[in-house]
């Protein structure tokens, strides 16, 4: 419960009332934004002010990929601050992927030894606890994602015995969505044991109830061409790569439930495979305009992060060195597009709408690191944050808020964030900021 009320009389004390500390934290942020300067003094204008506020969605998140490129602790903490300025409440930490394994493992230290980009580019247990605590003080959950069994090249570097199609070149695109290719051998019981080790270790380190299992972009060719899997399928008529995947997911989701966590996963697990998870599972829809409705049709709780609206890394073109064209998810998502988008647009049944917990914007880091993180996230994620907290419906007109009225507020917030040390990108020439309605 993040609701609060804020009462600012004409003089005297302002009062924040909230049912939980989380509501109080949200209220304090709003209060900080009421303060403006007037000839060098700090004032609150238009008093008395009475605010009754509560979020539209309970899951308002930001995905940060720290595997493709590394982010030192200070940039993650700064991102948490920026999230707090926008009342975002979930840091979906996509901590590992094919490219690097930066997080300490006490059970499998070889993963970090072989998989971190360098000794300096690591997250120790202490770092992780620091992040979790810093986030908690800002009423932000830290939900980890360990995306298996795909995206596993870096695991294969430490454990080649449980990996398939490792770094196929030059035709990596037959075996993976991005280079380097590599997936866990889902027919090998040692891979299952390994995965259980990971789930167990990190379920303890990360205190959040939610644990994201990944499951996106699994490549069938990779497994089909693996000799041990060919053998397995031959010896087990009736089974196929698909049934192996379903078997894998069953084991993983059961394990997580056993560990007391709520499994989160990408839509691929339940929409692309004949896999049925418990209905406590939360499914993250990212692919199609209809993904969210398909997920809720199956009765799962859902998070909306459609790539064509919420993938903030898109628009920089392809990162493959010999290709001067676009990336798969171009063009750049503008704040206007993000603001105008209603994630519930394709879901009419109110029962199904209730299953949508919220959404997430994502910063995939193929072309982003500490030099760019602030600029790619902000202020576009602020536009997203308003949709998640307040929605984009203007109650007075019962239609989407006019972007020309939103722009000045977004710009004000952008400058507020810059003043607070976040390098949010500029939205317009300063002249337009000062002459609203003229641009």
């Amino acid at each position: 419960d993040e609701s609060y009320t804020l009462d600012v009389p004409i003089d005297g004390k302002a009062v924040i009332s909230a049912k939980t500390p989380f509501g109080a934290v949200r209220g304090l942020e709003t209060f900080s934004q009421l303060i403006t300067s007037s000839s060098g003094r700090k004032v609150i204008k238009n008093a008395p002010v009475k605010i009754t506020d509560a979020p539209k969605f309970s899951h308002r998140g930001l995905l940060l990929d720290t595997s493709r490129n590394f982010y030192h602790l200070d940039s993650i903490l700064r991102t948490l601050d920026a999230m707090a300025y926008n009342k975002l409440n979930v840091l979906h930490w996509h901590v590992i992927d094919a490219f690097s394994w930066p997080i300490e493992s006490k059970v499998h230290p070889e993963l970090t030894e072989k998989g971190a980009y360098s000794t300096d580019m690591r997250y120790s247990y202490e770092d992780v606890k620091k992040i979790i605590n810093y986030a908690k003080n800002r009423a932000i959950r830290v939900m980890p994602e360990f995306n298996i069994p795909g995206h596993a090249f870096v695991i294969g570097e430490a454990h080649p015995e449980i990996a398939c199609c490792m770094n196929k070149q030059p035709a990596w695109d037959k075996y993976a969505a991005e280079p380097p290719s590599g997936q866990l051998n889902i027919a090998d019981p040692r891979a299952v044991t390994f995965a259980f080790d990971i789930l167990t270790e990190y379920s303890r380190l990360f205190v959040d109830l939610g644990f994201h299992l990944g499951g996106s972009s699994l490549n069938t060719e990779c497994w089909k061409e693996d000799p041990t899997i060919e053998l397995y399928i031959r010896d087990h008529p009736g089974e196929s790569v698909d049934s192996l995947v379903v078997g894998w997911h069953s084991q993983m989701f059961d394990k997580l439930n056993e560990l007391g966590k709520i499994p989160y996963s990408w839509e691929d697990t339940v929409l692309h495979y004949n896999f049925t998870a418990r209905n406590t599972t939360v499914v993250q829809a990212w692919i199609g305009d209809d993904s969210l409705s398909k997920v809720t049709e199956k009765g799962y709780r859902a998070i909306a992060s459609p790539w064509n609206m919420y993938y903030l890394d898109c628009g920089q073109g392809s990162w493959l060195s010999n290709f001067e064209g676009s990336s798969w998810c171009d063009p750049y998502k503008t704040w206007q597009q993000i603001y105008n988008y209603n994630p519930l647009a394709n879901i009419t049944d109110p029962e199904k709408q209730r299953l949508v917990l919220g959404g997430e914007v994502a910063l995939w880091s193929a072309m982003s690191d500490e030099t760019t993180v602030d600029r790619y996230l902000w202020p576009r994620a602020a536009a997203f944050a308003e949709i998640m907290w307040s929605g984009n419906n203007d109650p007075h007109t019962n239609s989407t808020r006019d972007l020309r009225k939103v722009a000045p507020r977004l710009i004000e917030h952008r400058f507020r964030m810059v003043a607070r040390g976040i390098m949010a990108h500029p939205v317009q020439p300063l002249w337009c900021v000062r002459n609203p309605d003229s641009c």
Partner: protein
Amino acid sequence: DESYTIDVPVSGKATLKAKTPYGAIRGLETFSQLVSANGYAKVITNTPIQIKDAPVYPHRGLVIDTARNFLSVKTIYRILDSMSYNKLNVFHWHVIDSQSWPIESKTFPDLHLKGAYSKEQTYLYDDVKNVIAYAKDRGIRVIPEIDVPGHTYIVSLAKPEIMSCVNKQPNWDRYAAEPPSGQLNIAKPESIDFTNKLIDEYTKLFPDQVFHLGGDEVNRNCWNEDPDVKAYLAAHPGEDVESLLANYYTKVHDHLETTGKDGFSWEETLVHSKYVPKNNTIIQVWIDQAAVKTAVEKGYRVVSSHHDYLYLDCGHGAWLPNNDGNSWCDPFKTWMHVYNYDPAANITNPAQRKLILGTEAAIWAEQTDETVIDIRLWPRAAAVAETTWSGKTDSTGHVRKTEEVASRLHEQRFRMVGRGISAEPMQPLWCARNPGSCNL
């Protein structure tokens, strides 16, 4: 002459030779790049090394816009540093535009007193001189641009009487390429006088031989519908807006000539007006690659800033709030696309090729200010810098492919980050460390 030679023996002293100090500066930059870390020591590997180097194009620049959004002097210093790391040698300072007039004018102080975003967001004469000196120490020329007669709304805050179509709302797009609308009233001799006085003032402040007078995106409706212009044309049959415009250009460029400077202007002055630029005017192409050919065939020197390759600000969507689509020049120009640009494409005549002085990558500032300037410029401007210093062809005649270039550009990107420039990453770090593994 920016040529130099470097001699690094296996042991002893390295020697740098150059005909001019500018060559020496370029050589020093190369030398700094030969130094790498080996454990805790600094070494130069692969000695002995002999380098003989000279640029293919003499004009290798950046257009920096400080009018749509302001850039502090400190930021400009950092841009000049980053340019020197890439042997870029022209800082084309697009200092004023419709949105603000940050540069001090002693002739018309109201321009900056009323037109700058704030007192702090102003370049006083001392600031300008400091920038010019800082640039000179790095072998970088500063070419100022006073963009006239379009793009001049801001002048209306000081001299409304010489303006046309000032801030037409809401249909500014009938009168200008972007809001706010406003152009110098070319039917009034006072506009010419105003421009000439600015030419007098700024040709003294900026020592470079070249002075840019703009001339892009002039809107005809703005003048056709202006009452003064209409009255003038009614009283002068045989004249029209085109002849007035040509007359304006003639007068101001004639005046520029009296200062001894060479003019520099956008392609519209050559291909979209009745005016015929002087022989020594340099034409800056931005719209159409064909304009490069037109210009050199007529004997003009050309600098290319072709928008589809060299406009580095593009790719972030429209900046008008009620437009959730693309900007006019999207998509984002990737470094590979930038690297593949050849300003002399389709021009075979050697005499004409020689008239192509080089390129300028531009960073228009509608959606750019100090928070993002580094990541927008780098490392993509480094890709332009290499193709204009070294060309795209090896000594063997092989045309470099981007996958062959990637490793070196990665290295340069990390070098710049190490030197305090927030150049953005090109790929996951894994790809930088495993060259050849992240190709299509």
